[in-house]
Every structure is written in C-alpha cells, then in structure tokens.
C-alpha cells in the first residue's frame, strides 16, 4: 500500500500541492482506518469489556488489525504534514475529517443527515476555505531572521 504513494518520487510538486496531497492522504487514512476499526468491532463475537485480554484478542481480527495499521500510518503522515505547515493551519483543515466521518456514516450505516448537520458541514468548509487562503507556514520567518 505504502509503495503506491508517489511523494518520494515526484519532487517537482510545489510545496502547496504537497501539503494538500498529504492532507488528503491523512484524511482518507483516518476515515477508513476508523471505519475498518468500527466495522471489525461490530462483528466481534464478544463485547469489549474491562478485560484487557479481550482487547488483545480483538487485535487479531483482520478488520481491526488493518484499521490500526491505517491509523498508525495516518499518525506518521500527520507528522509529515506538521513538518511542512503550521499547527494553526492544519487544525481547521483536518476538521474536514468530521465531515468525512459523517458522510461515511451515512453511506455505510445509513444515518440520516439533518438540516442542522448540513449547516455544520457548510460552516466547516467555509472556515477551511478561509484558512487555506492564509500562508501555510508563518513561524519559519523567525528562523530566517536569525
């Protein structure tokens, strides 16, 4: 799966493009990682109780194991993202993940989406669009001033 990610091999992408590729990759990994985890947990024969052994056995479930791997890779991609952009830039942008989770929940779990939720989605996209129009790194200026 990892080999398919072309970022090492295409150095000609601009910094902005690379940031958005990383962002898209992170959002996809986290959304599908969580979905795989939830899917696996729902189909377990035993309920997840206080017993830690049950958790360990749950990790042997292929869906849950795959979900965990995807979430670990998502964490690494987020670290790479933090290496190219501000925290205050990434935080609002990754909030699009909440929207993605709601959409996936509707698609796979057939949840209804109320008008209030659509308003929330619109607010998140408007906010993210506004933040995306600001420079992605501002703290770097301090470094170059040294």
């Amino acid at each position, binding site marked *: 799966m*990892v*080999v398919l*990610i*072309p*970022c*090492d*091999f295409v150095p000609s992408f601009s910094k902005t493009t690379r940031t958005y590729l*990383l962002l898209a*990759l992170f959002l996809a990994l986290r959304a599908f990682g969580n979905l795989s985890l939830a899917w696996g947990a729902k189909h377990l024969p035993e309920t997840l109780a206080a017993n830690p052994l049950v958790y360990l056995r749950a990790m042997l479930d292929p869906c849950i194991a795959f979900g965990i791997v995807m979430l670990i*890779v998502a*964490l*690494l*991609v*987020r*670290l*790479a993202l*933090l*290496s*190219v952009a*501000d*925290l*205050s*830039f990434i*935080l*609002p942008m990754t*909030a699009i993940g*909440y*929207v993605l989770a*709601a959409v996936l929940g509707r698609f796979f779990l057939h949840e209804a989406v109320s008008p*209030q*939720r659509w*308003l*929330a*989605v*619109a*607010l*998140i*996209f*408007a*906010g*993210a*669009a*506004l*933040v*995306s*129009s*600001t420079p992605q790194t*501002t*703290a*770097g*200026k*301090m470094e170059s001033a040294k």
Partner: protein
Amino acid sequence: MKWVLLAIMVLATAASDLLQSYEMKRVGEQAVGARGLSRLLRMMVERRYLLLSIACLAFSFFAFMALVQSAPLSFAVPASASSFILETVLAKVLLKEQIGARRAAGSLLVLAGVVLLGR
C-alpha cells in the same frame, strides 16, 4: 467527574499536538514514501518530544473513552472541540505562529461547525 476527564483530555491533546508541531518544525520537511514513512516511524521512537507526544495522545484517548462512557456523545464531541481554541492560542504564544484575522475567522467558523455537528 466529566469536567475532570474533559480537562485531562483537552490538555493532553494540546500538549501532544504542540510537542509534535514543535519537533517537526525543527526536523524540517518529511516525505511519506516507503522510505519516508519508516524514517518517521524511527523518529517517533528516537526523539524524546515525539515519544512524549504519543504518551499524551494515549492519555487523551483513554480520557475520551472514559468520558463517552459516563457522559453523552452530544456533550463529549462539542466539548472536546475546545482543545481547538486552546491549541490555536498556544500555537501563537509558544510556537510563534502568526494568526491573522483571516485564519482566526476561519478557525472560528470551523469550530462553530464542529460544535454544531456534534450536537
């Protein structure tokens, strides 16, 4: 009790993100190909700040789990969005990120959306 759990969660999340952002800004640009990912993985266990950030992340995860067990999700999700504000303010103060009017306004819109989504 739920306020204690919420405070633990918000503080741990903020600490984790600030540590990660601080360390990754120092390290410089990283790629995410096969080699880049293994490099990042190695960094995560070798660098003290990143290791500490993972510990904070675990804390915040368990606090969130405990929170959703005792409080309804409609409280937990919007309330945990408050880490968003704390982190943005701390990014400005501690990491010296410049947050202009546009980024502040955008962040507030997103916050409003997240709170509304969680209700």
